[in-house]
């Protein structure tokens, strides 16, 4: 088990390295630079700035320097937010983004799985159709459309919750963004759970369990749930990706001080180091999620060996 995990971890390092390399050279290949302004800087000042940030060196030297910094956990200084290092900027915003994402994913799982199970148990009933219609809506309509409407209803018309803004420690400001963000994964999870549950309920071992006289909740929770969750587990990585991209817009609509804004802003400003930091954080998260799914899969389905 430990050996398998280490092996997968070792496989993740080159992937991350390739992503870092592509991103590094892509962003430097783009026209423009971090010190472009409406009024061009005098050449001496520009030269000074560039040498201060090491931008006067050949790209390969910059690349080597950047990697060396990374190896020591240093993401470098931000070019646009003067006096801030990328580590500080991301360190300040990341807890907010993480809180938002974790809450959205937990909510999607906590509601999606029971909802899908219920729909499967009441197959072809009104509850089933209602759940599946809701799922289509959740899949079709993206967070950046849902959130403004939620703000309009609960913030403007009803006045229950703030439309936008942020106070440290306040849950009220997170309610609407979390709801908007969790809807698409919730809908997928409900759909996957329902489909997989319908299939499992027809299988022999479930019939045996019922024949033994076990009560419904025991059959569902002890026997059916594990295999039912397999497709849900493999959806977890795409779910995290969907929540990550969703949070880029949701944070800006809701005015949350997360790290979402840094990706687009950083790229527009040619803030090389900040964009690199964002790409690394998000890629690392996705890769880690992939690893987690593998482990989860092996636990859910004992037929999958760890020595693969």
């Amino acid at each position, binding site marked *: 088990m430990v050996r398998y995990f280490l092996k997968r971890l070792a496989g993740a390092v080159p992937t991350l390295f390739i992503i870092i390399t592509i991103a590094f050279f892509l962003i430097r290949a783009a*026209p423009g630079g971090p010190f472009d302004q409406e009024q061009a800087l005098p050449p001496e000042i520009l030269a000074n700035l560039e040498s201060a940030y090491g931008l006067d060196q050949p790209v390969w030297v910059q690349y080597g320097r950047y990697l060396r910094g990374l190896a020591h956990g240093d993401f470098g200084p931000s070019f646009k937010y003067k006096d801030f290092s990328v580590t500080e900027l991301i360190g300040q915003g990341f807890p907010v983004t993480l809180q938002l994402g974790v809450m959205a994913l937990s909510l999607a799982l906590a509601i999606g799985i029971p909802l899908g199970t219920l729909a499967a148990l009441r197959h072809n009933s009104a509850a089933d159709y209602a759940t599946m219609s809701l799922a289509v809506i959740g899949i079709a309509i993206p967070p*950046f*459309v849902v959130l*403004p409407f939620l703000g*309009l209803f609960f913030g*403007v018309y009803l006045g229950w919750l703030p*439309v936008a803004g942020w106070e440290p420690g306040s849950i009220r400001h997170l309610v609407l963004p979390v709801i908007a963000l969790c809807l698409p994964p919730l809908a997928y999870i409900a759909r996957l759970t329902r489909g997989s549950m319908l299939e499992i309920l027809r299988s022999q071992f479930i019939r045996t369990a019922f024949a033994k006289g076990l009560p419904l909740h025991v059959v569902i929770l002890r026997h059916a749930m594990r295999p039912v969750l397999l497709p849900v587990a493999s959806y977890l990585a795409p779910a995290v990706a969907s929540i990550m991209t969703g949070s880029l*817009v949701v944070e800006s609509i809701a005015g949350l001080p997360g790290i979402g804004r840094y990706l687009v802003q950083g*790229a527009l400003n040619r803030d090389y180091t900040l964009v690199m930091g964002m790409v690394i954080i998000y890629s690392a998260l996705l890769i880690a999620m992939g690893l987690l799914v593998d482990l989860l899969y092996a636990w859910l389905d004992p037929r999958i060996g760890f020595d693969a």
Partner: protein
Amino acid sequence: MSGAVRRWRANPAAVAALAVIAALIGLALVGPLFNPNDIRALDWANVATSPSSTGAHWFGTDRLGRDLFARTLEGTRVSLTVGLVASLISLTIGISYGAVAGYLGGRADQLMMRFIEVLSGLPLVFFVIFLTVLFGRSPYFLFLAIGAVGWLTMARIVRGQTLSIRRREFIEAAVASGAGPVRIVVKHIVPNLLGPVIVYATLTVPQIILFESFLSFLGLGIQEPHASLGTLIAEGAGEVEAAPWILWVPGTLLALLLLCLNLVGDGLRDALDVKER
């Protein structure tokens, strides 16, 4: 095929959705003919007026006094066009890649599928954001960038189908009668992929429209003075408290469009009985 058509017709949600899509397309095309307001005109007498307070602008006006009915129709046209063109690009790439991989089989197939696996592990959306920010925002580039994201699943589906078709007798017959590999892929394999391709294509269009409006929402897609539904929603989201109708109109339209496209696709999948993957 006729059985599939019957099954599809028996699905009221899908039929209704198709009617709504047809109505929306019709409205986007002929609507401007009935609208007295010019799309670029700034009506300074009616800045940010709600739909009810003036008879001149059916959907009201935005912050600059532009007619929202005209803007929303243009946005719908742009979103639909981008959706269709980018879907075509992504389908072309996906189908040819998948068909070639499936037909060649063996090492080449393994290598090509490994490439897809690596790509789908990357945060592709980020790279598209990256690319659009860095390398200008011409509409052509936008088509390509969006189209380049959507082809992975299509390639996987097509490859799986091709693998099973390739073993069938009529392919053997084609080989025996001297057809070359290109002819076999184009003439014999691709036409037989139609069912799953149609299903997945109808499900790709809403995904791509969604992605385009996402980029436009971030300010990376369609640029002023042009509008897509995404830019209009972004405008509306900033005015929720003062002028909610600026959000209402494009927001409802995009939601309706995406919902109906998904319903049609789901209906087709059930009617043609295509398994995903």
